[in-house]
């Protein structure tokens, strides 16, 4: 189960990276950035949390890192979207 989740997360991240490279529309590209932060991160974190660690401190750290990535991802996409719109309009 843990292996499946980790694989799924890595695959989503790789898919997002490839689609990001191949997309010409500069606004559509940012959706793939958000996809990696919001879908790939929980999958990989869940998969890693289910693996065996030596103490619960490590799992707690893992969850905190995952929460950090999950929350900062959309905020960064908003900032980038703002910048892209300003450059496109102005």
């Amino acid at each position: 189960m843990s292996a499946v989740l980790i694989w799924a997360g890595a695959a989503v991240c790789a898919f997002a990276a490839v689609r990001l490279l191949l997309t010409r529309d500069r606004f559509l590209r940012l959706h793939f950035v958000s996809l990696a932060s919001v879908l790939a991160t929980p999958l990989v974190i869940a998969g890693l949390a289910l693996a065996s660690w030596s103490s619960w401190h490590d799992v707690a750290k893992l969850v905190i890192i995952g929460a950090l990535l999950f929350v900062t991802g959309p905020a960064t996409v908003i900032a980038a979207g703002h910048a892209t719109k300003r450059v496109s309009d102005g």
Partner: protein
Amino acid sequence: MTGRDFIEPAVWWAVLFATYLAVISKISVAELVVGALASAAAAGAAVVTRRALLSADNPERYQPRPGWLRWALPIPAQIVTDSVRLLRPRAGFAEVPLPEDRRAAALRGFAALAVSTSPGTYVTEVDPDRDVLVVHRIAARPSRTERAVSP
């Protein structure tokens, strides 16, 4: 300074110190001292920030309303549907109207975050005069989160 003024920094310190202890792998005297000092400094900064940003007399009114937490409910399902949608996206801009609220600045900020969390939409511009979020979408119809945020 009365006794009640010490409650808030103490709570911050306790939470931060507990988080610190949760994530370090070995607990030794040096770690405890460093953690206590760092938590104290961070608690001081947190109290000052909270008082400046979220106090009721701040004219910008950044304090969130608890009712806004319901915006988080459609997000997990929305993430799944949007991820599937991204295989065949139809990109376009749209406007999301926001309800009237005295705490307009906080509403715009939190609504923008809630709408942008799912990969299907993100906010590109905020129009404070018309209370509208200009978003970029991949579906033609508004997502459930957008509908939850609108009036």
